[in-house]
């Protein structure tokens, strides 16, 4: 018993579940929203990435962001958001482009091409950091794990004079809206290009352009989420909501809707868990959405393990 009480902090319902929504609403609402926006944008887009069997492209992008950040810093000599963002997205788009080129111009398969490209770019990043390390001042912890809680330290900026929010929360909100909006707008060509690229081409759609647009959007989402959840956990956010939802439904629109519910619950429970156990919020959200995946895997109707056993 004593070991447990040492490992797990005392649970106070008041402190863990009530105060974040009353007295301390100000910092906690930003943590929750940031978590929700990140998980929603990643999960929504990730559903397509998963069904197109490109789950690890997100991994590749998140690792090749490093040289993009360093080069953007060296060129602009500032840590302003815009050059950093452009540098990182540029590196992400370059990654997916290079994977394509290597795959097409040689007999190397996509997975190996992916390994070649992102390790090389990451290595270039490491070299650049060691060369110019003293100037660059990159927080490697942040690169790996993300610092979702940092949003509470940011000054609030006004949105059209309507309300005030931290800059990164606003940006992530815009990115989430962009993702959901674009997917809805281009839903039909996106689905046909994913399910049957041949048919899409024969109808005058351009599945290759679709692929590149999807990859660029993925780069934007990964890079925007990067600061909050880090290079590794962003993969969990990309893959878990879509796979979990796919266990629960076999209609794509429903699956996409469920990913948003998962993002909401994941961010909510994750925030409360992080507060209770005093742990990283990004880690807590990832663990919660993993737990939801596990539940779905075991209990899902028709596709779940129990259903298969007791059918």
């Amino acid at each position: 018993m004593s070991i447990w009480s040492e490992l797990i902090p005392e649970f106070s319902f008041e402190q863990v579940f009530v105060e974040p929504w009353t007295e301390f609403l100000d910092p906690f609402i930003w943590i929750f929203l940031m978590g929700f926006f990140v998980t929603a944008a990643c999960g929504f887009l990730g559903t397509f990435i998963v069904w197109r069997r490109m789950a690890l492209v997100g991994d590749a992008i998140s690792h090749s962001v490093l040289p993009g950040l360093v080069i953007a810093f060296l060129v602009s000599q500032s840590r302003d958001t815009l050059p950093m963002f452009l540098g990182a997205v540029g590196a992400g788009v370059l990654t997916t482009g290079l994977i394509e080129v290597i795959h097409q111009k040689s007999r190397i398969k996509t997975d190996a091409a992916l390994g070649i490209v992102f390790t090389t770019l990451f290595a270039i990043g490491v070299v650049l950091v060691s060369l110019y390390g003293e100037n660059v001042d990159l927080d490697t912890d942040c690169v790996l794990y993300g610092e979702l809680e940092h949003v509470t330290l940011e000054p609030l900026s006004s949105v059209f004079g309507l309300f005030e929010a931290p800059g990164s929360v606003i940006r992530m909100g815009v990115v989430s809206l962009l993702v959901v909006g674009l997917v809805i707008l281009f839903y039909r060509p996106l689905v046909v290009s994913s399910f049957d690229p041949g048919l899409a081409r024969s109808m005058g759609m351009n599945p290759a352009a679709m692929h590149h647009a999807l990859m660029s959007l993925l780069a934007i989402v990964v890079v925007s989420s990067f600061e909050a959840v880090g290079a590794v956990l962003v993969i969990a956010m990309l893959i878990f909501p879509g796979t979990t939802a796919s266990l629960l439904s076999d209609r794509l629109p429903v699956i996409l809707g469920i990913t948003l519910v998962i993002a909401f619950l994941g961010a909510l429970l994750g925030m409360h868990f992080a507060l209770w156990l005093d742990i990283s919020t990004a880690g807590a959200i990832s663990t919660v959405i993993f737990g939801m995946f596990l539940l779905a895997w075991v209990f899902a109707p028709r596709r779940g393990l129990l259903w298969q056993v007791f059918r």
Partner: protein
Amino acid sequence: MQEIPLETHDLTVAYDKRPVLYGVDVQVPEGKLVGIVGPNGAGKSTLIKAIMGIVPITGGWVKVFGESFARGAKRVGYVPQRESVDWDFPVNVMDVVLMGRYGRLGLMGRVSKADREIAEACLDKVGMLPYAKRQISNLSGGQQQRVFLARALAQESDLYLMDEPFVGVDAATEAAIIELLRELKGRGKTILVVHHDLPTAQTYFDMLMLLNMRLVAFGPTEEVFTQELLQKTYGGRLTILSEVANTVMKESK
């Protein structure tokens, strides 16, 4: 003037610089049911994909109804090889058939009630209307093929390209499909069907295209279905050569 639904000239296609189709010249007349016949790896699927611009062509040109494929695309319906798509994809039968309408909707258009009614009518034609709400992985091979056929019907095209629609289907489905193809032909549609079974090819099709990397022959079935030409397509040096080429390719991988 009668339009030529499909014309290719000196069509050449290569994968990784290895040519798989050389100099295919055909002019397919309107209102014919045409079988594309040839051994495995002869380039039958490649021919269809090259016509539709799904794989890039290395040389020559393709015209549908006298225009480039891109311009004529709306008049062409497509049935890919069944195993070319992921049948676990989270869509149901109705979703797949509605995809046949997407080519007409443009980027922003919405699926209308009329589109749904057309899709339902097409499903009914292939006997799959009761399955409209089924997820596509919960279908037999024959049912999946019928769904693809319904989707092509929903495209309301004048030229249809079908890749092995009879593979893995039961006898009843095969009979139903051939019935449907004849009905389409009766309405003046032109249909190209990749087929690998020689005895039925002779009875199903008005015209045959014998293909083995090159076009061996193209003409009315009774003229083309001869021992000599079939030998040339299946048993001749060409096959042996391509088999040798294949083995060499595999070993060098």
